[in-house]
Structure formats: C-alpha cells, structure tokens
C-alpha cells in the first residue's frame, strides 16, 4: 500500500565535502551571544509599556508580556491571565527578548560580494528589491514559472503564511512553494486528515487534566513543550497513570508509571501490539466503533499477527510492559494520547500516527470531556502555518490545490481565473533535489534554515550552491542565508502584528512591541514590494496584517479550517478563538460560541463535510481505522553501521538555533551538542564521559563530545540538531521521506561510533554557538 520511499538526491556515490569553517563570515555576522546589559539590567527602569503577546518560539505559544523602553525590549513579565500557560514559561520564553536589539541583527539589504567582509556588502533596499524582481522575471521567462521556488516557514504569522501562498500561486504562479512544517507537523497532519478528515488537535489541553491514562509517544514534553508538563503532572496528582514511549528516559519519563523504551522506528509494531491485546481482551468500545467508524476489520486484521511476544521482539520492549500498557489503556475510562516528532519523523510517519489513532478509535475515547488525542505541534505557528496555502498542495482554509471546487472558490476570492492557479508542486526536500538537478534555478526563502534543519545537509549545501539566483529574507545572517545572492532584512516576531494558531487550535494575537531597526521591515511589506517591482501588485496592496486577516477570513470560509467568524477583537476578548469558527451555519445549526470550537468530534456536532451525518469530517461523518502493515526504517543498522542514530532537541535551544544560538544565557545552559550514549555502549567503544567521539553515517561524519548516561537504549545514540556546520547532526541523517507526508526520517538512521583521534579542527576556533 506504500509507494517506494524516496531516499537520496541526484548525486553520485561520493559524499560532498564537510562544511567549510567559514570563520570570516562568522566574525562578520555571528552568531554571537547577547546578554542583558545597559538598560536591560538597570534596576528601577520603568518600562514605557507592557505588550501582551506570545512567545516567538514553539507551538505552545505561551502568553507573556514584553517590557518595552525606548524601542528596546528590556525584559518579560508573566501574563497570568492567559489561560493556557497562566504565566508559566520555559527558559526560551524568559530570554527570548535578547534576540531583539541584537548586535548580529541585519539592518540593511546585503549583496554577495566575495571581497567584502564576510562575503556580503550592504546595498540600498530599493536597489535590492529591483534586483530580486529582475532576477525572478529573467529566470521565469527563460526557464518557466516553476523554475522559481519559494521556501517559507511555520514561525510566521498566519497572515504572512497566507500571503506567501498567495504570492507564490498568484503573483509568481509557480507550483513550487513549500514550508519548513514539512520537517515538523506533516505526518500528523496527513494522518489526521486520513482518520478524521481534519487536521487539528482534537481537544483543548484542559481535557488532559481529567484523563485517567495519559499515553505520550515520541514526545519529549519536558524539553520541547515544557508547559504541557504541568498539565500532565496535574492529571497525575489526581491519579492519572502516565505511559511514556521513548528510546530515552526523558525528564517526563523519569517518574512515569510505565516506560516503554521503543527501538527507534518500530512504533507501528507497538500500536498494532496494543490493539491486538485490546481485541483479545475485549477492551473495545463496540458501540462507538459501530456507530462512528469504518474499517475496524482492516486494522484488526493487521493487528492479528502482533502477538505480545512478536511485538516485544520487534520493538525491543519487554512483553510484560506491553501487556501492562495495553491493560492500562484498554481499561481506562478517560484518556489522552499525545505524540510528537518521535512518532512522526519517520519514512512511515503517517502509518505510525494512524496506528496510534487506531487505539484511540478502538477505545471510543475521543470527542468527550477528558477523552482526547493530539499531536503536539512543534513550531510557533505550526498549526496556522499549515492551513492557509503555503504547503505545496494547499489553498487557504485547508483547501486542496488540486480540487476543482476549491480552486474555483479561492480564484474567485483572489479575482483570478482558476486556470491561472498552478497545480501541486514539490515538497521542501524535493525542491532541494530539483535545485540540485538544475530544474529549479531561483529560490526565495523566508523563515527557513535548511542548511541546518534538513537531513543529509552536505547534499543540501551542494544543491544551494548551484542556484542561479537565491534571495533570503531573514533578521540574522542564517547559515542558509550565506548561500544567498541577496539577503533582505525582515522582521522579528515582536516587530509586527498578526495572529498565530497554537497547539490546541486556538487562534491568538501577536502584538507589535517595537519598530524594525535600520532598513529592516515587516516581511509582508517586503513580499509586496517584490510584487510591485514585478508589476503584479494587484492583490498585494494590503496596508496592514488586519487587512490580510480580513481577506483570509473570506478565503477560508466554507473550508475545513474556517476562520470566517474570527476577528481580532473576538480573539482578544476571549483569550483566543478555536477554529473551526464559521460566521454562518445552516439553519438549525448554531454558530460556535465566543471561544469557537475548543473540542472537536462531539457526538452531535455539525461540520461542513458531514453536514450533520456524524461528528467526523467525512461525508458519512465517521472516522477511519486503517490497517497498518509494519515496515522498518529506511536505513536499518548493519555490520558496517551497527548503531541507531536518533536526533531531537534540548530545552534551551529551538530548531536550527538561528535565534536561540544568539541568546547568551540559553547557549550557556547547553553550550554544544553532545552524543548521548549508554555506559555499556561507551564501555565497548572505550569512550568515557566527555570524550571526543566521531559519529559516521553513509552521508557524513561529525566529531562531538560524549554524554554517557544510562537514560538511553544501549543500541541507540542521540544528538540534538540545533547546531550548524561540523557540529550538525544533520550531516549524518538520511533524507528518506514518508511517501505520503514527505517528512524526513530524522529519528532513525544507521551510524558507527568511535573514539575520536583527537579534538576536531573547529574545537579551538569556534565559540559554542557557532
């Protein structure tokens, strides 16, 4: 049932060279660490204003207040009233303000110039925009519209993501736009659409509090979604049992009731095994299955062969623990299943998620209070950023680019002929491959640092170097922007306003705190300036994010992700509004209350797809089980590469680190990546804690210090991925992708590990964050 997995790019057997050290570029553009000083540490400074907004980092989008003095953010103050986090923050949220007024900040447009310091020289902004437009024109005229691609990001406001999709599809008319959510949320999104017909957290987080069993699969909640910890602990105070599935004993797993140390890449086996035991012991909600689902038999058929002993053999989890997990899950009255990238970053990530959804549907525990299911969205606007048209196959409102009705509706809103809309284009990694093959000649990127964040990064660098023209919009000179011909100075989150949609599906307001410095300006103005210089400004003359949002409301109306009933005022009055929130519903169907729709799939709920037939978003109103055949990772271990590498995050850093590697206190917390390994493996390798070790895969090699801990499976090593260049874990990872979601397999590839011959060349030359 799977199409073949795509693994590598168009490259020969030879691995491209290791990343250059780039010392001169680092000296000019950083990253350097900022610490609080001057006005930021002077006590007794009264802020000019407190701006209620949200964190600029992860999908939790914690509410906080920025303290502003003289156009500088001097600190944060908790925002206790915001209901999701009630003042709580992780260290990133506390220190985020140090990214503003940062010495590395790009204040001008830059043009590549090999004799200038750091390889770039500043040029006037209008001149830069003129050149961008001229290059787009030239390349599209010569090589066709699709030869120019756009890579966007899920940390942008929803207004900007809407504009990026519109810009690519209507202004550039290229099929090739995709975004960095491709590395994050897409497996969960695809699986949720397949199982439920809608891609959103099924429940508000408050439903975690009353759950009897909380199953966390592949989610390092304490480090990657820290605020969710308190929800789990609160449930536990009232007796909830916590089950954690992870190859590492994460801080949340340390005190959980049941820890399942799954072998990376074997998750479908585990969930099939649990379903097997649920069926065997009749821990099923037959009424729910009969009334609200289809294809249970397909799932049961695949689960049949997953006896506890076979499940144990494949997953590397003790049979007793698997039985206990099935019993806890099977006999609970209320429950919440949470998963994140650990389940999703696989060449069969969609299948993994569908197998987890199977045990939720079999239990019937969804669509009711304290009965929930959700992925933990990773990026700041990971939810909103995947709804309104910057995905390669998408139009606003969660509509499909290849659906004629959807095309017609959006074309009408935009005032164009549906035939002028391109068809679905390439996913983010395929865009890189197309660049490497010479099919894509030009690129515009924003809010995306693929040189650090994409797998097999040596290949990514090789590809980017081939671009005929590349323009990057960024606030710092990211590792990727260094490959650009032109760099345009964009805006920080705190320099613009708009909305984002956080992990629960709650649309919230980002408020502007300070102005852009120098020649930098809000990203959406830059995009509109390019459209104007291209002579295609129609549709790109918004004067504010609010105007964009008003158009987005119309463009999303009637879609699954319906924002038509949401206004900035309604968001502010209610601490956010949960979509779907249509402005109109058929007669007899009430429109959602002030807060929108916090919980999906309630028994009598109406949606625009089922139209009353049932709570799920399919014409028959029923959720879908899926039969899940097991398949292992794309690259399994062997004699040459006998150890599994898995990658992930640390609490003090965020994604590619373009921001957090510039914030001194966060760098000091966990300065450099280390290779986590079990003492038994370390002993076999003759490696002591803190020794330099070299990790090699078929794609690259990386020398880092070890961290010898018994909190990881002995057959697996872990490296956090936030660092660039020769410290980058993604030199090693594999570009195998899920055939449906196109997510890369960051969570498992084969490596070998040895004690290093000595310190790496970079050790004496680079600061920790560089």
């Amino acid at each position, binding site marked *: 049932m799977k199409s073949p997995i795509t693994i590598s790019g168009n490259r020969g057997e030879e691995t491209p060279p290791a990343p250059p050290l780039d010392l001169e570029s680092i000296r000019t553009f*950083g990253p*350097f*660490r*900022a*610490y*609080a*000083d*001057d006005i*930021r*540490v*002077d*006590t*007794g400074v009264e802020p000019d204003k407190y701006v209620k907004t949200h964190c600029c980092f992860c999908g939790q989008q914690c509410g906080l207040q920025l303290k502003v003095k003289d156009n500088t953010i001097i*600190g*944060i103050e*908790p925002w*206790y009233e915001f209901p999701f*986090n009630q*003042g*709580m*923050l*992780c*260290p990133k*949220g*506390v*220190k985020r303000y140090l990214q503003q007024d940062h*010495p590395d900040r790009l204040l001008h447009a830059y043009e590549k110039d090999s004799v200038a310091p750091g390889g770039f020289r500043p040029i006037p902004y209008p001149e830069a925009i003129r050149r961008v437009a001229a290059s787009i024109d030239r390349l599209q005229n010569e090589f066709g519209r699709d030869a120019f691609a756009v890579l966007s990001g899920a940390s942008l406001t929803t207004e900007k993501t809407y504009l990026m999709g519109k810009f690519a599809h209507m202004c550039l008319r290229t099929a090739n736009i995709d975004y960095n959510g491709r590395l994050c949320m897409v497996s969960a999104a695809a699986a949720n659409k397949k199982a439920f017909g809608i891609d959103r957290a099924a429940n508000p987080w408050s439903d975690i509090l009353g759950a009897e069993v909380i199953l966390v699969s592949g989610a390092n909640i*304490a*480090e990657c979604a*820290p*605020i969710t*910890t*308190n929800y789990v*602990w*609160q449930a536990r*105070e*009232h*007796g909830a049992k916590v089950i954690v599935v992870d190859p590492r*004993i*994460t*801080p*949340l*797993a*340390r*005190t959980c009731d049941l820890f399942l140390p799954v072998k990376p890449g074997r998750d479908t086996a585990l969930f099939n095994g649990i379903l097997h035991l649920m069926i065997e012991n009749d821990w099923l909600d037959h009424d729910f299955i009969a009334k609200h689902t289809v294809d249970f038999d397909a799932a049961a058929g695949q689960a049949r062969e997953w006896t506890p002993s076979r499940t144990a053999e494949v997953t590397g989890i003790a049979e007793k623990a698997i039985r206990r997990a099935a019993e806890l899950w099977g006999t609970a009255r209320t429950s919440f299943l949470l998963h994140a990238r650990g389940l999703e970053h696989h060449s069969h990530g969609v299948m993994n998620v569908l197998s987890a959804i199977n045990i939720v549907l079999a239990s019937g525990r969804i669509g009711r209070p304290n009965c929930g299911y959700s992925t933990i969205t990773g990026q700041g606007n990971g939810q909103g950023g995947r709804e309104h048209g910057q995905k390669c196959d998408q139009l606003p409102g969660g509509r499909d680019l290849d659906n004629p009705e959807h095309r017609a509706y959006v074309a009408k809103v935009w005032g164009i002929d549906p035939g002028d809309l391109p068809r679905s284009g390439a996913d983010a990694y395929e865009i890189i491959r197309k660049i490497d093959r010479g099919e894509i000649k030009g690129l515009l990127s924003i809010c995306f640092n693929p040189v650090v964040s994409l797998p097999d990064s040596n290949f990514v660098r090789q590809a980017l170097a081939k671009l005929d023209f590349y323009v990057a919009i960024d606030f710092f000179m990211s590792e990727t922007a260094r490959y650009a011909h032109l760099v345009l100075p964009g805006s920080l989150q705190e320099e613009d306003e708009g909305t984002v949609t956080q992990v629960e599906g709650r649309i919230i307001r980002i408020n502007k705190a300070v102005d852009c410095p120098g020649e930098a300006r809000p990203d959406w103005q830059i995009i509109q300036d390019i459209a104007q210089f291209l002579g295609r400004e129609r549709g790109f003359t918004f004067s504010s994010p609010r105007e964009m949002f008003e158009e987005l409301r119309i463009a999303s109306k009637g879609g699954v992700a319906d924002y038509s009933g949401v206004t900035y005022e309604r968001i502010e009055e209610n601490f956010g509004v949960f979509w779907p929130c249509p402005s109109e519903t058929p007669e007899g169907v009430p429109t959602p209350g002030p807060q929108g729709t916090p919980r999906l799939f309630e028994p009598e709920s109406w949606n625009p797809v089922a139209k009353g037939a049932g709570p799920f978003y399919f014409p028959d109103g029923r959720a879908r089980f899926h039969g899940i055949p097991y398949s292992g990772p794309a690259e399994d271990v062997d004699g040459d590469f006998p150890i599994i590498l898995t990658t992930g995050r640390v*609490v*003090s850093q965020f994604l590619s680190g373009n921001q957090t590697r510039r914030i*001194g*206190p*966060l760098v000091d*917390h966990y300065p450099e990546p280390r290779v986590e390994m079990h*003492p038994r493996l370390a002993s076999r390798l003759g490696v002591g*804690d803190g020794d330099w070790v070299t990790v090699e895969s078929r794609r690259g090699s990386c020398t880092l210090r070890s*961290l*010898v*801990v*018994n*909190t990881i499976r002995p057959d697996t090593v872990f490296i956090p991925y936030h660092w660039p260049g020769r410290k980058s874990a993604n030199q090693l990872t594999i570009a195998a992708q899920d055939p449906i979601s196109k997510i890369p397999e960051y969570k498992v590839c084969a490596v070998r590990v040895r004690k290093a011959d000595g310190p790496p060349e970079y050790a004496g030359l680079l600061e920790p964050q560089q």
Partner: protein
Amino acid sequence: MARRNTRGSLNPNSESVLLMPVPDNLEFFIDPSRCIGCQACIQACSECDTHKGQSMIQLDWVDRAQSTQTVPVVCMHCESPTCAEVCPADAIKRTGDGVVQTARKPRCIACNNCVLACPFGVPKMNTGMNLMMKCDMCYDRASVGLKPMCASVCPSQALAFGTREEMARLRPSARPANTFQFGAQTIRTKVNIMIPRDSPTDIVDVTSSMYEPALGCELLDGLFAESLYEG
C-alpha cells in the same frame, strides 16, 4: 561583536524602601519530583527587577549519569536563619513576614560565614560586588501578592506559590513539610517541600530516629540528636 553582561548594580533604593510584607496566606512550595531541569527558574530569577542579570537559584543534576533528576534550590527562609545567626556584621535580616532578606550592602563585609553555615547551601558570594546575595522570595513581587518570578514561570510547577488551600486542592496526593533535621539542629522554614501525603516524616539523619541511651562514655554521650519520635 557580542556584548557581554556588565553586571548591573543593585537598586540603591531597594534596602531603604519599606515594602508591604508578604501576605500570610501565600506560601512557597517546592516539589522536586516535578522538576524537569529546564532552568526556566534560573533564567527568570535573573529577570527580577531588584537583581536583574543575577540568578539566586541553583539547579543541579543529582547524578546525570544515572538519571535525569534535577533539584531546584531556592532560599528556604528559616525561622531561625543560620546565615543571620553567624553574620558578624548583622547584615542579614528576617522581616516580620518570615522572609530572610538578602544581605544589606552597607553592612555586608563579604566574610563568607553565611555561605559556609547555611545548611541548604543557598547564599552565594558575589565577589565582584563584595556582597552576599540570596533569594528574597522576590520581595518586590511577593509583598504585593504577585508570585515570585521562578514560581511564576516554572512550567512543571515544581516551584509553586499560593495558599495552602490551593495546594491541598491541586495536589491531593502530596503534603507540605517544613521541618528539617540536620544533626542536632532542627530547622523550620517558611518554604515548604512537597512530599507524598502518605509518607511518614522524612528522615534525613540516622540519629534523628535513634534511641539515645546514656552510655556513661565521654566520647559518645550527647552525639545523638533528640529522636523525632520521642514524647
């Protein structure tokens, strides 16, 4: 180039301003079993208006090779603060609301007595400023009913600030404890440690649960503390 932290000076007004006392019903609770080691507390402590740029919290791995367990340490605000008792300059004051204030700058002679004597290892000497600094429970915040910075942000609520009633409601399986035995010294603190509700008193010193016979031996008599279980 990156700018370095030039350590800011303390607010010159902070020790002369008489703030409102911390309301009686608001207490501090620490639950190390909840701690996830994220260091949000450390980062937030250094955002406190009275000592910006300086953190007064320590958070350590217990034994990272064996576990991800971490423990946050804030000032326990003792009823009879050892730090104050050993201070030769009378620089450490306990206000009527039970908060042990950080050292008064004009008096502190940076002798380190308090650093050495505190049974919890809380005070730290800021050698650059010749001043002992420690947690004052964010007096500027707590005295007006706001949560201290660390307990505000702590995403696991291992550090929590509120009323006993709130804690009892939110955490039915735990109870607060604030009496600690260090050898012969019994210490009561304003800050509470949450322990499992059904656990007996936590014994931190073997002598605290020993029966002490009079041995008639000069070397041994009086070595044992008074048993917690006596009388």
